[in-house]
């Protein structure tokens, strides 16, 4: 009631105020001309007669918290003055949107819920400027986006759409990694198979003993491939395949190091990934170690291909400098057939668990 008294005593000092209530319950009053700059508030006042007193404060949408409200009111307070020049308004806007990205997003959301279109335009322009020209990794970092697409999904829309040489390099890199993994997996399987000689028929054994004594390594490879193929036919979902799946997730290490979370994720990642891998395996086995880049490369001539190969090798080496060694270590514990858990120290460096520590 004291406000009413004051109104009687000093009418010339009373401006009209609008009462606003944010989602957290706090109520404040704002000069009328400032608040009415927001269409949503304007609507509430005119159509519904709200906001004239504390009891009838206008409830603002949930996306408007007190901090954002104060920013928005600053904006309104400046722009609702009619006499300002365009230059003044522009330079105010430039200074106004200088804030961290998180607040910028919150502000966009709040301005949109109040239907304040000029501010939404301003903030979306600022956000677009932030996104423009950056790589996906940088954008994820800035906006804290989860990197939850599988590799195949990432590659799908990119193939051919933008024809970026970087994308092509990426594709080749992934393909190389897969190939490397297959190689290692084969090596591992050879070790494993030593225990399961029984699977082969006698004829096979004989033919092997009697067969060509050429390059032992070559023979060994072809033998292991034959064995693998049969094994694969017998058991679709061997643990070897699972291991491949798990390890295949690793090449995503362009932007992150392996960690247990990722590994855990891949198991969950889905059947789609598995079936894709089966196809890939088939390709590799059928094509005898030839890297089938055919469907990934579009019309790269051989000289360029070699150059890109070299670049990819370099790229891979530099990014994952100690990755191959680590994989060897993992694979040498192959008896366990469980994914090895990595963990991150406080300072973020990798520590691998030695086998003995694992249990």
């Amino acid at each position, binding site marked *: 009631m004291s406000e009413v008294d004051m109104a009687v005593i000093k009418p010339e000092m009373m401006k009209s105020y609008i009462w606003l209530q944010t989602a957290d319950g706090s109520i404040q009053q704002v000069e009328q001309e400032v608040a009415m700059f927001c269409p949503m508030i304007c609507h509430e006042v005119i159509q519904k007669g709200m906001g004239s007193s504390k009891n009838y404060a206008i409830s603002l949408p949930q996306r408007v918290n007190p901090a954002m409200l104060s920013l928005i009111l600053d904006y309104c307070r400046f722009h609702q003055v009619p006499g300002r020049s365009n230059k003044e308004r522009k330079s105010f806007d430039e200074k106004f949107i200088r804030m961290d*990205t998180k607040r910028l997003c919150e502000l966009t959301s709040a301005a*949109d819920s109040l239907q304040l279109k000029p501010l939404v335009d301003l903030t979306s322009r600022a956000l*677009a400027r932030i996104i423009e*020209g950056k790589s996906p990794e940088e954008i994820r970092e800035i906006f804290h986006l989860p990197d939850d697409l599988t590799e195949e999904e990432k590659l799908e829309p990119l193939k051919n759409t933008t024809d970026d040489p970087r994308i092509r390099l990426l594709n080749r890199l992934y393909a190389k990694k897969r190939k490397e993994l297959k190689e290692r997996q084969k090596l591992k399987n050879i070790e494993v198979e030593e225990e399961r000689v029984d699977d082969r028929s006698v004829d096979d054994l004989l033919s092997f003993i009697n067969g060509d004594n050429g390059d032992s390594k070559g023979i060994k490879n072809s033998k292991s491939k034959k064995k693998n193929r049969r094994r694969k036919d017998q058991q679709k979902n061997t643990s070897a395949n699972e291991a491949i799946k798990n390890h295949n997730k690793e090449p995503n290490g362009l932007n*992150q190091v392996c*960690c247990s979370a990722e590994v855990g994720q891949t198991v969950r990642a889905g059947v789609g990934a598995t079936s894709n891998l089966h196809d890939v395996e088939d390709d590799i086995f059928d094509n005898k170690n030839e890297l089938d880049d055919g469907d990934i490369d579009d019309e790269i001539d051989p000289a360029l291909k070699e150059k890109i190969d070299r670049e990819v090798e370099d790229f891979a080496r530099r*990014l994952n*400098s100690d990755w191959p060694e680590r994989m060897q270590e993992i694979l040498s514990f192959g008896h366990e057939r469980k994914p090895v858990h990595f963990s991150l120290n406080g300072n973020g460096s990798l520590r691998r668990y030695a086998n003995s520590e694992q249990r």
Partner: protein
Amino acid sequence: MSIVIKQREPSRLPSKTDAEFDRISNLPGHVIYQILSRLPIRDAVRSSVLSRKWRYKWAKIPCLVFDNHCLNFSSQDQSFIKNKLVNIIDHVLLLHNGPIHKFKLSHRDLLGVTDIDRWILCISRSSIKEVVLEIWKGQRYKPPSCLFNCQNLVHLELFNCLLEPPLMFKGFKNLKSLDLQHITITQDVFEKLVSSCPSLERLTLMNFTGVTHLVIDAPNLQFFDIGGIFEDVSFLNTVHLSYVSIGLYVNIDNEENDARDNSSKLLRFFVNLPHIRRLEIQSYFLKYLAMGYVPSRLPNLCVDLNHLSIRIDFDDLEENTAALCLLRSCPNLLELEMLARPEEQSSMERSTNFWEEDHWSSLFAHLRLVKVSGISGVKSDMDFIKFLLSNSPVLEQLTVKPASQEGEWELMKELLRFRRASIYAEVIYLDP
């Protein structure tokens, strides 16, 4: 220097904490489209690899712009560029999944290939509102007839095209803005096009072939900008027209026309422009207006005319007469711009001062700002400036910019001497 692998601190399982930090993915759809629409198409499409939520956000943006930023290289090999562009646009249109409201195609190396036909077909099925098609090189491109089926079209902009709508074409009911530059169109088609778009508010026509007599019948037209070669222009039913800029790019010969047609072009021009606010008479259009009978003043004053710009040859008597008639007919003029057309010097300098003959003091009652440029300091130019300065009581600024440095000093000395009716007048001299 090796590439640093970013190591993230806590585990990056998509957890509640991530959802709290990720403020952008859950913004309302229309806001996301605003953000994505402001990115070049490359960056917008690449947002599909950011995260699961972002996979298909780009596919719904209502605005697709394919311009020079599409390809980040340029090449002399025409077919290489074409293949790349066609590839990109085909893919984007195929993967796009939502209404398309704006489509712009403007790459400097893209010729008018038939692939454009199928893109236009694709967008015409999608309630398109704005189409901008700029073919920078090569022959005039003929848009397919499906373009003329886009009844939701609000803005159409064509550059280097040949317009031949199908016979059944009944106009664009919602078209508000039409911008045709470097186009070929026949007389009938043009007239029909303009008159069958009842909502038309803005019309731009530059460098056209095939139309000689411009007849503009557009009841809602507010903005009209034309530059080209034509013989005649007439406005029917254009009461709302408030901005007109006309440039006639060819010099016409007065003597030829005088014998045939004594009617006043000036009168005919202004009879249907009662509310004109800004008028720009460019190139040789003043000569056109000066043809036929020129009254001392228009019967209906242009009371709304605030801004006038005239390209004039101060040595030409007819043009001066026409200009004077105009100046007398706009009592509320606020800004005036006179651009001298550099003609060959007339063999004799007129000894009389054309502008001295006028003693109507109410001529420039509200005139505040004047720019005169391209003058060379000859008598006819300076006579006008003298006349202007002594008849504009509220003038605030006169800017003078000569065509060349020749005779600069003389010009400035004369300028200095002129009497000024306004005590506030600043005379600013700009270097040529």
